[in-house]
């Protein structure tokens, strides 16, 4: 575990040395990037958690849009996925449609969303929600469809009510695949946020990177990339942590049958 931080530090040092020697404006040394990030986003007052107004005005809104989009995707994809997955008839009709929706490159539709939702937060949230609902939906359907038939029979034999079947059987059994879809959606949400903000936005991390690109501000551009990497890592770790906590039983049960 500690190995990964050691390796990261080693890579940073090598990069620093190379950049100092090469003096290329395209590849500033890590020290310059970190300094730029600090100055731009993290040199604010302690009362604001050291966030500058630029951070509050850009980083937080971006995160908020991602959160909003993912929340919509989960709220729609989860229940809908279970409903569709439990009905073999319905899922049969919807399978090709869902597969097609999954492979639709959401990025191609960014202007359509602009037209429909107009410039602003709601467009970005809708865009992210639309793109991230597919992995969650498809995976939840798969999970709900593959509930162990013996577990289902047990529920029938002990005459569990429909509500009990849902909360005590279907939902827990579907969770592992749901989380697989959620992880995909989380990394996808970051991508969609950047795309939406590169196209038409007046605030946000992507917007800042865009203007940095247009004004040849390489350190800020790199800072944005690094920030996105950190955010992606943190978000992924958060989902993994949540999954780890919620699905303890899943790992234990798999180990027993193996």
């Amino acid at each position, binding site marked *: 575990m500690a190995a990964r931080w050691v390796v990261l530090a080693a890579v940073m040092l090598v990069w620093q040395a190379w950049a100092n020697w090469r003096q290329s404006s395209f590849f500033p040394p890590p020290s310059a990037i970190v300094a730029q990030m600090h100055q731009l986003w993290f040199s604010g007052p302690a009362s604001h958690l050291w966030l500058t107004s630029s951070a509050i005005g850009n980083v937080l809104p971006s995160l908020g849009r991602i959160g909003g989009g993912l929340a919509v995707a989960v709220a729609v994809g989860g229940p809908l996925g279970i409903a569709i997955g439990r009905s073999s008839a319905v899922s049969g009709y919807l399978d090709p449609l869902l597969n097609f929706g999954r492979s639709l490159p959401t990025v191609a539709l960014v202007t359509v969303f602009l037209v429909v939702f107009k410039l602003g937060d709601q467009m970005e949230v809708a865009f992210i929600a639309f793109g991230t609902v597919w992995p969650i939906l498809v995976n939840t359907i798969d999970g709900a469809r593959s509930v*162990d038939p*013996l*577990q289902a*029979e*047990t529920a*029938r*034999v*002990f*005459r*569990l*009510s429909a509500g*009990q079947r849902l909360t*005590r*059987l279907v939902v*827990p*059994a579907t969770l592992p695949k749901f989380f697989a879809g959620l992880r995909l959606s989380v990394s996808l949400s970051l991508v969609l946020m950047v795309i939406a903000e590169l196209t038409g936005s007046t605030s946000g991390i992507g917007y800042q990177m865009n203007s940095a690109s247009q004004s040849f501000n390489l350190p800020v551009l790199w800072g944005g990339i690094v920030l996105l990497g950190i955010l992606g890592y943190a978000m992924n770790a958060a989902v993994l942590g949540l999954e780890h906590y919620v699905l303890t*039983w*899943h790992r*234990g*049960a798999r*180990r*027993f*049958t193996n």
Partner: protein
Amino acid sequence: MLEVTNLTHAYGRGSGTHLAIDQVSLKAAKGELVAIVGPSGCGKSTVLRCIAGLLQPTRGTITVNGTAVHGTVPDGLAVVFQDYSRSLYPWLSVRDNVALPLRRKEPRRAQRKRNAQRALASVGLNDTAHRYPWQLSGGMQQRVAIARAIACDPVLLLMDEPFGSVDAQTREDLEDLVLGLRRDRDITILLITHDIDESVYASDRVVVMTGGPGRVRADLAVRLPDPRDQIVTKELPEFVHLRTEVGRLVRDQQAAAPMALPGRPFKADSRARSERGSGG
């Protein structure tokens, strides 16, 4: 208590029909333990699933405690399956698993927990309430399944090869456990097994089925003294005789005479041979 008349079931339709059981009839009085024994694939599980209401039979009638069963699960019924690791829910603790079916009859949560704990105690698992099923051994998991089955005070308990997935030592313990529970609670039990010793040892009656399609070959009364003991009972000549007879019936041979007389050549039963030939 339980009456099954001319139960017939065929899977599939048209040219792909497979007749699983044919005209199966059996009875069980209140408090009786009836064992159904037969080779693999003879339709024992199909019979059980029809009685449990999980399967709607093609023909025939089933009555449980006076009410007819036809494709819906009757009241007062409980089932113990063979595969405990897949029948118990891994996301629920042991106690929550046992308490799962109690909600229908008992709305109070505290009372449900008490009932579940009591059921666990009666199978010898007082201290496992908060653990998860997959943390327990196979034998203990099956005890949990049994506890779950008796927690709701069923009148009829169906057991589908419940001890097929545990080792021999555990199997003996579990057989005695079931016998004890039956004695204490006066439940009617239908025990499906492919173990011939078990079928005679644990039951009051043994129904022998043959396969391809499943039919009742014989219905034998087991007149062994109670309480049963794994060592003492199995030494008794009556046990040995019954066990041998059941064994021969399962292997599709005629029931043998008590002794083979010298000088009389053994003649294989032609009818048995033709039955075997037509079977699967």
